[in-house]
């Protein structure tokens, strides 16, 4: 993936959804699916 510039993002804010586990992951996945229709998640 392309990353253009230096960005400081605190771990707590940027990874909070992953650390939260299944509940938010499923919602995040749903959003992701909308934007990545080519990806086959089985």
């Amino acid at each position, binding site marked *: *993936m392309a*990353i*253009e*510039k*230096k*960005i*400081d*993002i*605190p*771990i*707590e804010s*940027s*990874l*909070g959804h*992953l*650390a*939260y*586990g*299944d*509940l938010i*992951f*499923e919602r995040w*996945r749903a959003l*992701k699916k909308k934007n990545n229709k*080519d*990806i*086959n*998640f*089985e």
Partner: protein
Amino acid sequence: MNRKKLLLIGWDAADWKIIGSLLKSGHMPALKSLIDRGVYGNMSTLNPPYSPMLWSTVATGKTPDKHGVLGFVEVMPDMSGVRSVTTNSRKSRAVWNILHNQGFTSNVVGWWPSYPAEPINGVVVSDKFQKVSADPKKQTPIEPSTIHPQNMKDELKDLRMFPFEITKEHILPFFPLANKIDQEKDKGLKSFSKIMASNVSVHNAVTKLLRTTDWDFTAVYYDLIDHFCHSYMKFHPPKLDGITSELFEIYKDAIYGAYRFQDMMLARKLELIDADTTVIVMSDHGFESGYKRILNMPSVQAAPALEHRQFGIFVAAGPGIKKNEKVFGLGLVDIAPTILHHFGLAIGKDMDGKVLSEIYKDRITPTFVDSWDKLKGDFGEIEKEEGSSVLSDSEAMQQLIELGYIDSLDEDKEKAIFKTQSDLKHNLARVYLGQRNFIEAKKILNDLMNEDKLEEKGPVLMDLISLSIKSNEFLDAKRYLEDLKKSKTKVRYNLFFPESDILLGLGQPLKALNILESQKSKRNSGELWFRIGRLHYGLRNYDQSKEAFSRAIEIEPDKAQYHRGLAETLFMLKDYESAVDHSLTSIELVKNFPSAHYILGRSLEKLGDIENARLAFQTAVRIKSDISEKAKRAIENIEDKRNISLKLSNKTTNKFIENQIVIVSGLPRSGTSLMMQMLESGGLDILTDNKREADISNPKGYYEFEPVMSIHKDNSWLATAKSKTVKVVAPLLKYLDPKYRYKVIFMKRDINEVIQSQRKMVGKNIDTVPLKLFNAFHNQLESIDIWKDTEPGVELIYVDYKSLVDSPEEAIKQVENFVGINLDKSQMITRVDKSLYRNKPQQSSVD
């Protein structure tokens, strides 16, 4: 009913060295909350520190030779190939099998190994679940047996994260300069994506199960920290010389990031459990983060494990567990017994661990069963495979290859199978070596050496060298070392440590020291300075050993044995207060360190603090080790000192001790045989086999006992010497077992006379005295004088040979008092034959 739930969380490779600074800066609040309401300590690993072995030990309470998981890979039962290790390799029941049998419900997520999933009460999400393809175009279906029960597959399948789902927002917190990474050449981000996705999958599964299932026990395993360490620890501050500034700047925050993310995941799990659920967070080993980091891994199997540190972490909190207290002496084998005890179940007597009683506020009383493995019944186990080709684990294998744990497999299946079998055998030998079971280890290593098909024998030879040194077979070690140098091994070994060990073992401490000294300018290593310190200590160069141990401590201040070494040196330098300080530091670092307690006791005794000295000795006795017997004797001496007036410098109590062993010693040709004859005539029971017959040099016999000559290898025969008298020449005294009480009658004779007598015996010119020999004998006598003072089980008197011959009555009285037994003095006198004193002092030249 109030259920006693327990959540076990495995963080592979988590290390206090990194956690310590993150706790201080407030970046691991979840772990901190557990420590505040629980206990914490070092978790001691096993050798070799290979994770599937170690996590199987955690699950079973048994060492790898018993549970059977011996490496990262296994040969398929039908011999059709090699695959990453599975539940099939485990020969012993895990705690979740036992809990199943006893009616408890467990969730097991990501455990290594746990595929195929076992059919227990509860849910098993095996370690195959999170291993997916990095290629979006490749399907990665969940295979049968990945999850138990099968109907959970639908609920869990969408919780797997794929590496290609990782976004910039996930990457940038770890690597703010990720824009500078040339992703064509540098695969750093690719590794990151795989590790993150895999651990998020595990986390999603466990959070789902914690939320939605009814459970007693949940175990979850994350490899996040370990895999981050293998990929990025080389970039962690302080910057290593071999790392470019650019790469350092890009990757330097990765390790802290991994720990912080791991802590965030912990926080979420703590939200999902009841307040009275017991929680254990632990790792299987630590990870080098200082100067011992390796930039160029040698090409040996499981090379990355060379960076694993001996101590991992342990934190536990819950009802009945102490609060904010450090606990000591924890081992991986202790986890399964502690879990069983938590659920009120019996501990298998065949388990190698114990219940961690120290973590509990109240005294506990574990119960026992002979063996859970031998009980019949439903333990929720898989049927072990007879043969299978359905397993396709290319993703798991690929991950192991990328991490460097295994080489790319040989396309030739037979070769791959042979290599795997050899590696597993070698690992088993290393397990035995770690247990000091040298006989079994040697058998396997010799088999491997005799295997013509095994191309790389360097690692086997290195273990044979190490084994031979540990079992005091120094000539064998030397031979193996020469074989290694001649071999065509592709691995570059640093041989100066084994070389110096061998030289020391062969009685050449100065040469051993020279080898180590030659490395001083080349490497700044605590271990090197420590070894130099030990050699100087052995040579009684206490000022130099003080300096060397101090240097070792400067480099690595948290090594308990370095402080112990310095404490021993300071004791010899009579700086008892500083010796106490360093013994205490040593104990602070490793509480169950018997020799540190012992030197603490000796130093306190010298300072007159008898009560605390006794406590220190008692602790040294309690922790089973080589030193416990010495400590027992030291306590007895303290008791004696309280009961009778005695100057310690005497080293005699002049009282009979039950089962005492009377030893007659001295330099060869100093009158030891004469003393043996006298004691026999006096009525003492003599231990001799009369194998060495009388001759002109000793016309009345030598009074020797053959096993004495090999006492350095086997001193078990001393049990038969109780209440008897035996002759042991001076250099062998140090091999006496500290288990027993000894009365040593040490024959002293002018060294010139001793040498003349010896030279006469072998037909050499007696007019010259070799200077080297003179010095060697002088040193030996000096070391005996120190030895007697350092051995609490030893009392020793010197009997002068000339005085014995000239006025035997006085010497006999001294001996009678010393052994505390009435002797037939008149018979003893008849044995003194003045004709034996024929090598009287003559004017000699010293050459």
